[in-house]
């Protein structure tokens, strides 16, 4: 257990300690219902790992949390903000403007399966871009900050290297540094190691593990069961657009209650 927060499951914890409150999220693509009423609360400093078969809605749920996908219904609150919407003067919920959504997203780091580094910028320029353009930081300060972040992920020797000359593990670490440079309140990881060669998965997991030790709030979609067992405070098992089981890694991995969890674990373990 690596979280700085000593309690176990805190889905009913008090509102101020909750970084994420997702309530009754539903999402359909065309006629296909991908998320069927998903609710999840995440406390400050908590690490939640989402597992489940492909197509079960893990990634779509993650993308609803920073408004990459707009839920058909339900409420997402991150760090006290209603994501993608705001209240007008009469207290009704209305869509937030692009600028407001951007400001909300700046507090939420997102790490992609395929890194999505800017190929025309060096590692340090990738990390500097957000602070300069979004936070209006001076170039000198942004560069210092970026070098700091790259050093934290173990890439102080790759500062001026272009993505095309980095390995997959190095690219993903730059991508994590790029998110961290915005000082997010929450980090979302969408299968951060799925596109990596086996020998470099460890270096990325180490970076994520260090973040957990520093108390970063994280939601991680992952197939790395061993890693989930070690780093997660809670594990949520997704199947067919629902969370079918949620609990500590011991509960979910060692004493699963649901048949669908048992069936899934028997395939991946």
């Amino acid at each position: 257990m690596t979280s700085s927060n000593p309690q176990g499951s805190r889905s009913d914890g008090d509102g101020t300690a909750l970084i994420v409150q997702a309530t009754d999220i539903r999402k359909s693509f065309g006629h296909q219902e991908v998320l069927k009423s998903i609710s999840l609360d995440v406390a400050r400093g908590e690490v939640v790992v989402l597992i489940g078969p492909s197509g079960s809605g893990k990634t779509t749920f993650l993308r609803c949390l920073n408004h990459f996908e707009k839920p058909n219904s339900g409420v997402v609150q991150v760090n006290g903000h209603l994501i993608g919407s705001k209240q007008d003067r009469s207290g009704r919920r209305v869509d937030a403007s692009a600028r407001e959504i951007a400001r909300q997203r700046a507090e939420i780091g997102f790490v992609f399966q395929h890194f999505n580094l800017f190929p025309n910028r060096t590692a340090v320029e990738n990390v500097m871009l957000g602070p300069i353009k979004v936070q209006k930081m001076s170039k000198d300060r942004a560069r210092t900050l970026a070098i700091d972040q790259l050093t934290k992920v173990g890439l102080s020797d790759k500062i001026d290297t272009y993505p095309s000359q980095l390995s997959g593990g190095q690219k993903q670490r730059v991508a994590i540094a790029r998110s961290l440079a915005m000082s997010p309140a929450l980090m979302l990881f969408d299968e951060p190691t799925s596109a990596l060669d086996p020998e470099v998965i460890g270096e990325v997991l180490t970076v994520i593990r260090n973040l957990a030790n520093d108390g970063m709030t994280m939601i991680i979609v992952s197939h790395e069961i061993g890693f989930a067992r070690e780093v997660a405070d809670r594990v949520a098992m997704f199947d067919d657009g629902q969370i079918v089981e949620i609990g500590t890694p011991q509960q979910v991995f060692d004493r699963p209650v649901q048949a669908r969890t048992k069936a899934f674990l028997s395939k991946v373990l």
Partner: protein
Amino acid sequence: MLISALQFNTTFFWHELLKPSSGFLGGLWRTVYISVVSQALAVIIGLVVALARRSTLRVVRGVAGFYVWVLRGTPLLVQLVIVYDGLAATDIYRFRDLSLLGVSVLASVQAAIVTLALNESAYMSEIIRAGLAAVDVGQNEAALSIGMTPAQSLRHVVVPQAMRFVIPPLGNDFNAMMKNTSVLSVIGVPEMFLITQEISSSTFHTFEIFLDAALYYLALTTIWTFIQAWLEAKIDRSWGIVRTHRSMLAAIREHFQDSRTLGLSRRA
């Protein structure tokens, strides 16, 4: 008399090639600046039209699509006559000679730049649209994830990357545009082709003077090929694709060795 007119006048040919008259040089200059100004305007208008075609509003998409459909679907020559003579004949708009920043611009030159820019912008919008589409959607999402607005993402992330896909076909179009300025002679723009015609009819050295004109057009497009190769190498370098810093000459040489554009590849 007849026989001497049919003979190739070598002296005249070389003289006009190496020491062209001021009239010819004026035509050459107009050809160059009309092309450059029109192309620059076309890129700006084309970017706006390309973005409009990606709009979430159906009306905006429709208007932009209509614009491209009409301008690509009608001949430049017809557009020229409509803009210059047609608008004047119906008293809608009459181009007049202007003095811009101390430089006088002929009415026909203004009409030429407007028409060429509009015509070319339709083609540019398609090139830019393809360039924007070639940038992976993950790039836009990465930009949004660090808190950029869609407009910031476009400006700082998507458009700069689209340039790499846009420059090669843009260069191709500009090459065509420089040669297409010759049709401007129909509305009386004193560019290189019209001047050449005038010299031809006053001297009867048709073959010599048009051969000179051809060589000048070839020189213009060749210089542009160099500039384009340099631009492409510069963009590649900014992507970290070329590892060592190369001279412009080396970049050009490599470009020709790669594409064998002029067939002088392996001789160097």
